[in-house]
């Protein structure tokens, strides 16, 4: 309570002071830390200038990627604690929807698993500004009965499995069970990423695989069917022990292995704005990429972009 009243006070005074100069960019990232910490820091000079940007108002609309949805949702609830007057609307709906809507100007932020240039016409993609808020990692997952014997697969084995050349688990050292492929729709960003980095760009055998609309259903299908294999983002495997991950070429899909560059199936999560982000939108995007929020990013199963030792 005390913290809140101090912020309100200082923001009132600094607002008039800063009216000549627009809110400084650097101040915004510290704004959040000031609110999260104690009263004493709010009294501090830097914090009081930060408080001006802290009282962000306005509305933000975002839509797109369902893989990124849990993270953005979490960030919104934390961002709103320090900026109660901001209204943020978030929709899932898929990367394609997000890209199209941000290009149209229907939403402020378009969330996407893939780069805008792969889906939008060149002139539209050129108008968008990319914010690589985090890195997402895709992991192959298998049913428990397979996991006892199969701990890791080579890229070639994985490709053969998903292109339906390998049809039985015993061919790759597993139990004598038919392989059940569980995949995502062709337009899914998860699928695109997995295809590019785990399967050497080989097209999955759509005519031999069960398709699921979302990663939640995919998890359930893999866990409830013998011999099933699929893939989800690591964020879906937090607190989920119903399935087992499989390593690729001996490297387990973990956040650490992604940071070091050993594990290869990862991609940036993009939050696009049309033109440079301004006001509340900018404050929110800065908060998502701030050091304060980075621990939450990892808790939710995503990689922090700034900690990556490799880039693409």
């Amino acid at each position: 309570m005390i913290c809140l009243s101090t912020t309100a006070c200082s923001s009132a005074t600094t607002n008039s002071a800063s009216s000549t100069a627009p809110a400084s960019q650097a101040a915004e990232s510290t704004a959040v830390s000031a609110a999260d910490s104690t009263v004493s820091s709010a009294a501090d000079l830097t914090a009081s200038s930060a408080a001006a940007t802290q009282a962000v108002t306005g509305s933000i609309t975002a839509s797109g990627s369902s893989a990124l949805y849990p993270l953005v949702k979490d960030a919104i609830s934390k961002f709103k604690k320090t900026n109660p007057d901001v209204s943020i609307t978030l929709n899932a709906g898929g990367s394609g929807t997000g890209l199209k809507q941000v290009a149209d100007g229907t939403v402020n932020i378009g969330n996407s698993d893939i780069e805008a240039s792969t889906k939008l016409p060149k002139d539209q993609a050129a108008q968008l500004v990319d914010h690589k808020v985090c890195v997402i990692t895709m992991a192959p997952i298998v049913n428990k009965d397979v996991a006892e014997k199969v701990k890791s697969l080579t890229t070639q084995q994985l490709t053969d499995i998903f292109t339906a050349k390998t049809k039985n688990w015993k061919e790759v050292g597993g139990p004598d069970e038919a392989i059940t492929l569980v995949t995502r729709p062709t337009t899914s960003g998860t699928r695109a990423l997995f295809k590019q980095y785990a399967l050497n760009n080989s097209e999955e055998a759509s005519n031999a695989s069960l398709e699921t609309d979302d990663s939640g259903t995919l998890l359930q299908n893999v866990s409830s069917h013998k011999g099933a294999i699929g893939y989800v983002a690591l964020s879906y495997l937090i607190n989920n022990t119903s399935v087992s991950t499989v390593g690729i070429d001996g490297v387990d899909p973990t956040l650490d292995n992604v940071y070091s560059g050993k594990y290869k199936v990862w991609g940036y999560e993009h939050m696009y704005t049309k033109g440079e982000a301004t006001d509340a939108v900018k404050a929110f995007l800065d908060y998502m990429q701030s050091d304060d929020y980075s621990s939450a990013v990892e808790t939710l199963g995503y990689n922090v972009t700034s900690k990556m030792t490799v880039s693409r």
Partner: protein
Amino acid sequence: MVKKEYLGRFFVTACGLFIILLTMSIGAFLLYKGMGTFTIYHHTLTEFLFSSNWNPADDFTGGGQVGAAIFIFGSIIICFLALLIATPFSLAAAIFMAEISPKISTKILQPAVEIFVGIPSVVYGWVGLTILIPFIENVFHLQVGFSVLAGSIVLAVMIFPSITSVSADSLKNVPGEYREAAYGLGSTRWQVICKVILPAARPGILTGIILGLARAFGEALAVAMVIGKMKAFPKNILSPTNNLTSAIASDMGGATEGGEYNIALWTMALLLLVISFTFILVVRKVSSKGEKQA
């Protein structure tokens, strides 16, 4: 009084016209979007309807394949199988309700059927996913129970109430004189039902069946959960396949709006509209035929 009279009339007319306008504009919108496959991306109707090569490009340059035959076939086979399963039960239930025991039926069966109608389709799908799929896997010793059979059974349960209630109504509407005359000629109860009541109520029963079929064609969620969504023609009724509604639902979010993939999905939506429109025309034809006979 006069004022009230006109106010009421204006309100009713406005609402009526609005609904008509809404329906027409949805139709027009689907037509506008759906035709893009043929006008913007230059595919042929033959390719769309009869090719099983489905690989539209998810961008604005096009050049993919839009053969939707697998989905169309999937929709048709599942619906007809569902009808095959549901119709005997529905007819039996309707006869029981209208002829055998109207008292029990109005107290128990009628409300039960009405509750059936009100159950959301996601519940049917979920029950199918958790009960039916493992059951099929156990009975047929399959690794995967997602199948045409599972989809048909779920759909059959869903369309059962609509066929039943429409059929029961039309059985009840058969004039009492028909029964009396038939009994007067010495018919047994079964003969009355079989030879007199059922033929007399035939247009109504057909209407019920077609309405059930239309519902079955348009149902997306429940079927999508148990069909398996595999892009292949089913080898038998125990193998998974895909249908129109599920295919639209799974890719509509991911495909870029206005891209070839997205437009191809709109074309499938247009096809669904055309199919249901055809069903409605058939219903009207059938029921008007019935009126002439009566």
